[in-house]
């Protein structure tokens, strides 16, 4: 949306090393990033560029080797409801219905039953799954599952939604629909979104800002503010200009890596 004012998330010199067969692998090296409240940021890059690692450190699933990850200026120490994660493989609880999955967070945090019910109703409606509210995950399509996953973190008062290639497993049409719906929800709720993708088009279509990452070692290469008005037209000339520019930036790493 507008220019960043207060950083909800700040990464300073964030680095992550893995041991692999006795070798040290730099999954992420010296990443610096500031995200403002309400901003939609896309991380883009080839596989191995550390975009998922970065997201998982912010989620609290992994610890950084060096550097710090701060949320509202306080260090992130493990997973918490203020940072909701949407996984590519959904991560829904198969034994809970759509309602049960959405209620999981609020119930775990001890919200009174009546309040949980209201919350669940609201978010089932927000993602348009009223007819499937009592269905189990295995009865839903991929797109519906991902709607549940989104509703689940929103119902749990997540301030930042972390999305790890959430639409990667969906077919093109479902994917476009969910992109539109996500933007709609984002605009209505003032969420902050950190969205990992390997699709340039998806990044430009969604983001306020695209962060380009490059592999070997994984690092943040450059950033680009997307100022195109929404809804964005993926076949417009200016959209294509940005696409070309980003494609060049991504491509240059491959060339460099090969050299």
């Amino acid at each position: 949306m507008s220019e960043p004012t207060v950083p909800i998330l700040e990464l300073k010199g964030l680095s992550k090393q893995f041991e692999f067969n006795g070798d040290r692998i730099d999954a992420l090296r010296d990443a610096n990033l500031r995200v403002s409240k309400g901003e939609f940021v896309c991380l883009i890059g080839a596989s191995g560029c550390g975009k998922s690692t970065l997201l998982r450190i912010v989620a609290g699933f992994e610890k950084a080797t060096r550097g710090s990850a701060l949320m509202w200026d306080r260090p992130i120490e493990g997973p918490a409801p203020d940072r909701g994660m949407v996984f590519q493989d959904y991560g829904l609880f198969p034994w809970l219905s759509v309602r049960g999955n959405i209620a999981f967070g609020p119930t775990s945090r001890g919200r009174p039953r009546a309040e949980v019910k209201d919350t669940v109703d609201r978010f089932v409606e927000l993602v348009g799954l009223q007819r499937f509210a009592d269905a189990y995950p295995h009865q839903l399509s991929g797109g519906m599952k991902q709607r549940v996953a989104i509703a689940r973190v929103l119902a749990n008062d997540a301030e930042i939604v972390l999305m790890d290639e959430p639409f990667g497993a969906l077919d093109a049409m479902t994917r476009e629909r969910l992109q539109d719906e996500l933007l709609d929800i984002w605009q209505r709720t003032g969420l902050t979104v950190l969205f990992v993708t390997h699709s340039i088009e998806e990044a430009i279509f969604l983001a306020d800002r695209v962060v380009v990452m490059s592999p070997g070692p994984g690092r943040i290469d450059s950033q680009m503010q997307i100022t195109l008005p929404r809804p964005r037209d993926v076949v417009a000339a200016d959209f294509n200009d940005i696409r070309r520019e980003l494609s060049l930036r991504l491509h240059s790493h491959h060339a460099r890596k090969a050299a």
Partner: protein
Amino acid sequence: MSAGAETGTAAPLDATQAQPAPRALPPFLKRLKQPVIASLFPLAVVVFWHFATYGRKFSLIPPPSEVAIELYDLAFGGIYDDAFSQTLLTHLVASVSRVYGGFGMACLVALPLGLMIGRLPFVRQLLDPTFQVLRPIPVTAWLPLAMIIFGLGPRSAVFLVFLGAFYPVLINTIFGVRSVDPRLFEAASMLGCEGTSQFFKVVLPASLPAIFTGLRLGLGFAWVVIVVGEMTGVQTGLGAIIMEARQLSRTEIVISGMIVIGIAGFISDRIVMWLGGRLLRWSPNHV
């Protein structure tokens, strides 16, 4: 359950696509189709059995009609009026109580133990190797030891049933707990569910399908083991009359006992499956 789901989705397809369906059966016949098919094979076996044994004076195996009469006499009496007449219910109740007693105790021990071995590395390192060594020992090999420890009588029988049911429940519980998708722990913790509540809200429900498989196998084994268990010198029980009838060369009683065990085991399996079907409606690939 799966059969019901299939017909549920197949019915509308049939109506639209296979419009001229000359061989479509009326619903009540359709429901009979499955049991009819299922009974073809046993019927053939009985027919074969009949012709192989009927009218042969020195056949050691009695014909099916004799077994049927014996079965009736065992259940209701009034035909032979010997020591076995009208005793079926007593024996059945004795066996059922031992099967469920041993099985219940196996569950009481194996379920918490399996959950702990699956979740706590220390308990796993402490106990798992021992169980791996004990597991291949057949229940029959335990028989002499059981009789020494528990004496002649029902306690040995229950112990052997316990042993038979114990390992399937234990192994499947461990498997269930250990194969919980790690993603679900991440999902739970980012939603604010941590520590012990994760055990109850994630581990337990996620491993329920495997646990149920274990219960089903365990109960099956309990029925398998009951005859061996009742070789320990108990007076009642289906295993006991089989052993006694064997000594008296009353083969028709032996076969009657076998049939009753088969049917009782089948019914108890159906009960577990029905329970599982209700509890695991969410699971796409269960029973």
